[in-house]
């Protein structure tokens, strides 16, 4: 079995009396989509933030590409190739779509501290960024101000910026949130192909998408991972059904 | 320096601290509830002092003068809020800074237009003048009265915010602006009231201090800067922070001015020590503020930046 790209060992995080992460060990293997599900308040956001580096755990460690990154901040982890999309789109709304992607490419090349030369006239960067936009189907909107995009288009742009980092792993926080049925289907199709480039840790409420995409699923309840397994294993796991899906079951 | 003198200086620091608190409380409330930076707060302090001086000159009564200061500053505050400030809540800090900077110009020169260019007369009433004995210490009665009034207002404000309906709404407004709208509170009325309350406190401070200082145009600006230092040290939006911050600034300013030249006198010749000590003392509160912010970027009791 290959070494996981991203994994955690015994992560613990408390906020006062609330145990947001309790001994969480999770791994993301090459080429897979690993979905993280759980009811609201289960600690998914806290876990994502510890993976991305926004908050540091009380104990335990995070490993990325064979390196202990627990002490590194978001910026350093992004430089190592961990690309994140946000639950609520975090984009430069006054910039054009293309500029947002170019920002990603600048981050990937660590080239933000260049003070001369018109960045929008840099042919190589432009070509590369336009190619990324083409992949998510936003090329025709390259010159549109991001603030004028529809909600669904913004979600796609988030993914495009993540792509421009040429990451070694994706952390995606509810990429389907707020998308209509069409949008979800489109995003699902896109992510499906993406796993070959880099594995995806997917936090998602849209169960259809999760069951379509996930190679494995982990279920987080009250800060604990109560089960990890394939779609069918999770569907049949009695503990999951009891704890998480008590009323209604998995559709 | 003798222990008695030190106690007297601590009292002086306390007195300047509680006056700063009256200024800072309004600023911090207005920021906490409405998210507004109000540079013109010092002008309301000036309005209070001028109103008090005018009424004292006309009636000879210091109490009436204080009431006039409260009323005039509150009225000016409400008027400014209705005409100008409420258009600024949704704006960024930059617009607020510019607009209230413009208000300073208008209020200062407008006051000079109205009252002339010379300082006005406002004095301590006879029943509060002169020193009293606190054990071995001779201390001006009026300053003691200021400390008492300041502490009483601080306590009253604490109760107002903790116990009354207005207080509940203010706290709700600080926590979550949408929530109080959802509670069915008339938000624009609440804002006008909070602004007028802050203005009245500033006006009261202006009148109280005006009696022992100089009632003149521009008197509010140095106090304004100090009040900003106070609320930033205490944490913007926190009344408790403003109180602690005000005392810290009052004590640092007073004791720094006395102790620093003496401290330098220990190893420097006297005239150089006074110069260096006085220079450092005049920067002391800003050094304090920078230090606090570097240590705690949102102030001592601040919740949000």
């Amino acid at each position, binding site marked *: 079995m290959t070494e996981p790209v991203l994994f955690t060992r015994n992560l613990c995080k408390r906020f006062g009396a609330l145990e947001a992460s309790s001994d969480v060990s999770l791994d993301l293997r090459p080429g897979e989509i690993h979905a993280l599900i759980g009811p609201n308040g289960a600690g998914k956001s806290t876990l994502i933030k510890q993976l991305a580096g926004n908050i540091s755990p009380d104990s335990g460690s995070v490993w990325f590409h064979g390196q202990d990154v627990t002490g590194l901040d978001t910026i350093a982890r992004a430089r190592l190739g961990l690309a994140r999309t946000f639950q609520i789109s975090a984009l430069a709304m006054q910039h054009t779509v293309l500029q947002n992607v170019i920002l990603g490419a600048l981050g990937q090349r660590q080239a933000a501290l260049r003070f001369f030369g018109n960045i929008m006239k840099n042919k190589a960067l432009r070509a590369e960024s336009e190619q990324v936009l083409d992949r998510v189907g936003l090329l025709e909107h390259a010159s549109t101000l991001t603030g004028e995009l529809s909600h669904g288009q913004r979600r796609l742009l988030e993914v495009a910026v993540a792509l421009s980092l040429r990451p070694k792993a994706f952390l995606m926080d509810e990429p389907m949130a707020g998308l209509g049925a069409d949008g979800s289907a489109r995003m699902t199709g896109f992510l499906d192909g993406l796993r070959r480039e880099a594995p995806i840790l997917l936090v998602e409420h849209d169960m259809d998408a999760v069951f379509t995409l996930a190679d494995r699923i982990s279920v987080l309840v009250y800060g604990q991972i109560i089960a990890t397994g394939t779609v069918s294993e999770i569907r049949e796991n009695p503990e999951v059904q009891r704890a998480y899906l008590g009323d209604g079951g998995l559709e | 320096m003798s222990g008695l003198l030190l106690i007297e200086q601590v009292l*002086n620091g306390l007195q300047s601290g509680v006056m700063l608190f009256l200024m800072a409380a309004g600023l911090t409330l207005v920021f906490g509830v409405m998210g507004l930076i109000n540079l013109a707060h010092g002008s309301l302090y000036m309005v209070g002092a001028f109103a008090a001086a005018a009424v004292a000159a006309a009636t000879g009564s210091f109490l009436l003068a204080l009431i006039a200061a409260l009323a005039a500053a509150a009225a000016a505050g409400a008027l400014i809020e209705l005409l100008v400030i409420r258009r600024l809540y949704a704006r960024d800090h930059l617009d607020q800074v510019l607009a209230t900077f413009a208000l300073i110009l208008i209020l200062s020169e407008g006051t000079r237009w109205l009252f002339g260019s010379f300082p006005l007369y406002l004095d301590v009433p006879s029943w509060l003048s002169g020193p009293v004995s606190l054990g071995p210490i001779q201390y001006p009665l009026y300053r003691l009265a200021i400390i008492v009034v300041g502490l009483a207002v601080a306590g009253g404000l604490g109760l107002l915010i903790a116990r009354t309906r207005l207080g509940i709404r203010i706290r709700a407004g600080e926590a979550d602006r949408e929530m109080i709208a959802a509670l069915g509170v008339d938000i624009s009325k609440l804002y006008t009231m909070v602004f007028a309350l802050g203005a009245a406190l500033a006006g009261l401070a202006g009148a109280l201090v005006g009696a022992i200082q100089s009632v003149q145009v521009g008197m509010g600006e140095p106090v304004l800067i100090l009040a900003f230092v106070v609320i930033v040290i205490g944490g913007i939006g926190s009344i408790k922070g403003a109180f602690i911050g005000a005392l810290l600034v009052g004590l640092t300013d007073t004791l720094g001015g006395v102790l620093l030249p003496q401290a330098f006198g220990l190893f420097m010749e006297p005239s150089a020590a006074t110069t260096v000590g006085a220079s450092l003392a005049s920067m002391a509160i800003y050094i304090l503020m920078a230090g606090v912010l570097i240590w705690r970027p949102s102030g001592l009791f601040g919740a949000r930046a």
Partner: protein
Amino acid sequence: MKMTKLAALTAATMLAGLPVMAEGVKVGMITTLSGGGAGLGIDARDGFMLAVKQAGRSDLEVVIEDDQRKPEVAVQLADKMIQSDKVDVLTGIIWSNLAMAVVPAAVAQGKFYLSVNAAPSALAGKGCNPNYFSVAYQNDNLHEAAGAYLAKSGFKKPFILAPNYPAGQDSLTGFKRFYTGELAGEIYTKLGQTDYAAEIAQIRASGADSVFFFLPGGMGISFTKQYADSGVGLPVVGPAFSFDQGILGAVGEAALGVKNTSQWSKDIDNDANKAFVAGFEAEYGRLPSLYAAQGFDTANLLISAINKADVADAAAFRDALKAADFASVRGKFSFASNNHPIQDIYVREVVKEGDVITNKIVGVAMEDRSNAYVDECKM
């Protein structure tokens, strides 16, 4: 929008486009007319303009501008007056730091500068200039007089204080030039400070027998009120600035009994002074201040020079100014070799005359006082 007061004064300026008359003199007055220190500038201007009006000369034009008490504004106004208005003489500056910014450049360009108030030591000693005249005093004079008075009156242990800035340091130096005995304490306060509780406590604890302070403007008002209220009760002496007519109204009875040193007082007994005080009250409806008297003398000095010489002939005009051939409201008045006055400096006491709090002369602190910088001035 018409603002009548200034409009009337500057009406003459509007005619500036016309060819300048050969013998006409154009004066640029830069003074503080807005903000906290405006009272002083307004008094100096009013005193100056009263003399101009009384002289009734059509060949004397005055351009007046507000320096906002900002040195860089004063410099720019001086540039404007020299370049655009083409003035011959500049005057009006109240504050030493503004004078330091304006005077050297103005006299270097061949203009005359007549000071209505500010007279820093730098411009009296090494930086003196034949075209620069102080009609008021040399800055140290009133402080020297206070020191001389305390020494003469037998005080043994004064406590002295001033703000921590050059004029404050000059003040205490000037005081100590003529008071050489023991000091109970010497402190520099923050410029613009308004609360003096800490200093008053130090005075009380120091065992002093008297207090000398130099705290101009609002600082002096605050100190005097707080000192009176503290009950310390030691005799106080200071330069006239903190007990001048414009300020006494704000200090009130707290100032009663305070001694202060001044080269002018409204009760100096001479005809020129009586006429000035009466004329000023009639014109403006208030008592004149020291600044008004200085402005009035400055204008009269200028007019006396115009009567004698053409301003275009700089050497003759300079000599005419230096002769000081005018009826000063101070009585005796002449210039020392560094163009600063030689004059008597009085001790005044703050008294109540009817309902009005004002000053009364109680003695002479120094007779025919010149200044300490005469020898340093090489011109």
